[in-house]
């Protein structure tokens, strides 16, 4: 099973602040993902990456941005946080089918963000 790390686990900040949510995985997975999840609701894909220097927007529109400079690292940034960004953000990774993997996604513990 993949080891996925997210920091911080909890974050409370004021409106207008710039924040970066960190996500790292140690399994060498090529694919990484960011999901947004509100309490009791389904997960919505907001960003994904198939490898270094590859980033794509997901199904749910998000004002956040991501980067993938290293295989193991996939940070998410909000330039100016707003109360509407309050949510839980989940990071996941998976290996490539083409590389003999199973494309099974493994999730990190999440970051619960509250914007006041």
């Amino acid at each position, binding site marked *: 099973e993949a080891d996925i790390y997210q920091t911080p686990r909890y974050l409370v900040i004021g409106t207008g602040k710039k924040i970066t949510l960190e996500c790292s995985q140690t399994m060498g997975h090529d694919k990484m993902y960011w999901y947004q999840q509100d309490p*009791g609701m389904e997960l919505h894909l907001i960003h994904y990456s198939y490898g270094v220097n590859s980033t794509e927007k997901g199904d749910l529109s998000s004002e956040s941005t991501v980067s993938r400079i290293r295989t193991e690292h996939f940070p998410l940034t909000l330039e100016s946080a707003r109360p509407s960004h309050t949510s839980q953000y989940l990071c996941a990774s998976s290996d490539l089918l083409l590389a003999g993997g*199973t494309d099974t996604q493994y999730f990190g513990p999440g970051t619960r963000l509250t914007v006041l």
Partner: protein
Amino acid sequence: AQSVSQHNHHVILSEAASLELGCNYSYGGTVNLFWYVQYPGQHLQLLLKYFSGDPLVKGIKGFEAEFIKSKFSFNLRKPSVQWSDTAEYFCAVTPNQGGKLIFGQGTELSVKP
């Protein structure tokens, strides 16, 4: 567009009761199917998955799921639930050849001791 539907939003059971959580998907091609579980305060964990072969798959903690292709279903079952099974359960689907993982809306299971 692909979609996943979980029939029950909230299920309440007593310990030792049998569990079946419904999951239906809409996609015309071959799919990979997953059940994830999220215990209170914990991260999303893989419960079981189906890629091919025997349509009855067994997962961790005594859970199993049956893939019925003709019904586009992948229902989760457990013969006898425990209080520790209280959690949110998510069904998810991805095309067999790779692609985005589509989640259902989740089913909250509460088990009374």
